[in-house]
């Protein structure tokens, strides 16, 4: 019962694809953080969405209490989330390293619920919005409108991803991380402290969320439950890209963004998430390790 398709012109479709790519870059960065953590120690962080929520709130409170614009508080968000990631590792995750897959899922899931409702307790369930940040408004280029916050957000996400990629593949510390994820024992023998590496991994994964959250707070509303939908998409993105491949997760995130927006436009908005999941299932049935997965 979807009427109105007769008026869909090519530039509306183009507009949608572009919007999908922009949103996809954000999904991508969120997914990359998740992938890093998984790649390092094979733990799926089911509290990922809630940590994103914390990033958004950090950005919000910096604005509401100290009048720091989200763009300027981005480095602060990144650092705070880094510390939170490290703290989560030491307090919660370290004890789970030898536990079953199941116990890990449930523990991080419990952490997610705890954080979500703690946020509700402290900050009320109200929706918060940052009004008139530096990044606001839109640009129109030949009939295609692009929101400035979304545009800047996706550019920043890409930059962050590139920096991360460089860090992991071209620096000493990055090598150490890679080594630890490949073979923990061997890395230990080489003098790499795996606990430090894991903590670093969690910190960086969380820092990615810090960046994504700070950018999203420019145009999205902030409330304790906001993380859930984004985290679902992140799990699918990582699995689609292939667990263990960071570039894979990033590209998968963008693919998901485009699929969501385009199917929402052309087929049925109510089913757009179903299509995202269907595409995921199709890919994974044909290629079980994901598009670029390691195994």
């Amino acid at each position, binding site marked *: *019962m*979807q*009427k*109105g*398709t007769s*008026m*869909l*012109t090519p530039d*509306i479709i183009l*507009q*949608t694809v572009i*919007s*999908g790519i922009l*949103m996809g870059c954000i999904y991508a960065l969120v997914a990359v953080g998740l992938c890093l953590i998984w790649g390092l120690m094979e733990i799926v962080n089911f509290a990922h969405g809630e940590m994103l929520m914390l990033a958004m709130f950090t950005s919000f409170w910096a604005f509401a209490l100290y009048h720091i614009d989200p763009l300027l508080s981005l480095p602060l968000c990144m650092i705070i989330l880094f510390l939170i990631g490290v703290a989560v590792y030491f307090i919660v995750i370290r004890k789970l390293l030898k536990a079953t897959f199941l116990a890990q899922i449930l523990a991080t899931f419990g952490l997610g619920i705890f954080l979500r*409702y703690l946020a*509700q307790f402290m900050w*009320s*369930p*109200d*929706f*918060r*919005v940052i*009004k008139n940040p530096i990044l606001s408004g*839109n640009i*129109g280029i030949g009939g295609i*409108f692009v*929101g400035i916050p*979304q545009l800047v957000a996706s550019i920043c996400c890409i930059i962050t991803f590139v920096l991360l990629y460089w860090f992991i593949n071209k620096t000493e510390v990055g090598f150490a991380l890679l080594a630890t994820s490949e073979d923990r024992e061997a890395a230990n023998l080489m003098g790499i402290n795996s606990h430090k590496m894991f903590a670093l991994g969690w910190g960086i994964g969380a820092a990615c969320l810090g960046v994504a959250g700070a950018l999203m707070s420019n*145009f*999205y*509303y902030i*409330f304790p*439950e906001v993380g*859930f*939908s*984004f985290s679902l*998409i992140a799990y699918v993105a990582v699995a689609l890209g292939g667990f263990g491949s960071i570039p894979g997760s990033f590209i998968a995130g963008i693919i998901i963004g485009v699929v*969501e*927006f*385009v*199917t*929402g*436009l052309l087929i049925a*908005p*109510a089913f*757009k*998430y179903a299509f995202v999941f269907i595409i995921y299932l199709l890919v994974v049935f044909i290629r079980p390790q994901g598009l670029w997965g390691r195994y």
Partner: protein
Amino acid sequence: MKRVLGFLSSIAIILVLMSPVITSAAEDVKIGVIYPMSGPIAQAGLDNKHAIELALDIINTTKYKNLNLPLAKTEGLPNPGGAKIAVVFADHQGKPDLGLSEAERLLTQAQVVALLGCYNSNVTETASMVAERMKMPFFNPESSSPQLTRRGFKWFFRSTPHDETFSEAMFKCLVDLEKKRGAKFKTIAVAYEDSLYGKDSSRIEKELAKKAGYKVVADIPYRRSATSLTSEVQRLKAANADVLFPTSYASDAILLLRTSKDLEYNPAAIMAQNSGHTDPSFIEAVGKDADGIASRSEFSLDLAAHKPLVKEVNDLFKQRSGRDFSGTSARAFVGFFVLADAINRAGSTKPEAIREALIKTNIPADQLITPWRGVKFDETGQNILGDPIVIQWQGGKSYTVWPFNLATKDLIYPIPKWSERK
């Protein structure tokens, strides 16, 4: 070792069964109130809680005896011997099955004499089923799904008008607007969140549109927790209807508006179904961007122009909760008074007596902060004197714009385009 575990489990169970539920004097008249206190709609539940606590204060004390509200002059309920009312709050978290079990628990463990709630229509549906099965009164101040009073229930009473009344009002407003301004509406679009609230409301809107001869050119349900509404707004833009009818809760209302701004979607008129579009958090988030959005409502602060009571009570509410009344909290406030008034006239806490008293309810308009002609129930338990109004956001504030005799400002039409507003 199963012993240890069995023992542990038994302790767990015993703890739950013995959990003290209320701490109030035995002679108090207890009312069970079930609202969403956690989850995405928790803010509405909290607002309602504050509204009810204010009502309790007014009824149980003589602090506000000058207000023209039922039972304000006395301390407590005069008829059951000056007993005070106590409220037991419960949280349904937006889940119908929790609403059901909480209703049961309150009625049987907490010795409440009646239930009040639940905001979400789907939770009200299940919770009231329990009351009906147990033959206890259930009072509903603000759920708007029409079928709630069409189940043949004898113990269910609702003070708010329902979606059909609301939607009829919206269409009447459009017709009046056509007459007054010489406008001509031909096409409409409906966009709605996909749960009971959105589906019911849009179904009625589509039926009424057909009857009135309007063509529905876009029918767009969306997931309330969607991370973006870009595709939806794109379709609305492509359909380019004369009037947009959104039905949203606060979060999606905010997202819908912002996305419309980003994509330069300029409907000439927007007619919303209250809830999200009149929620204080919505207007706080978007400010003047909401200008031009009209919505059916049961409350507006500017009603104080005709009825000073509105401002007096709102000031008290604001002191307590830091926010103004919204359509929802105002109705919860009124609903509580109706119930309390009925219990008072019943003179006892026997369910049948309360029910009889509810049937005979007749509260005049001047004792209500809502713009209704009064409160009187028909044989299905529905208040037939509830009149909706249409409000419109102008300059970041809401003003009554219809019916024209109650209006404090003119309806802005067409809504200025985004490019014109910069």
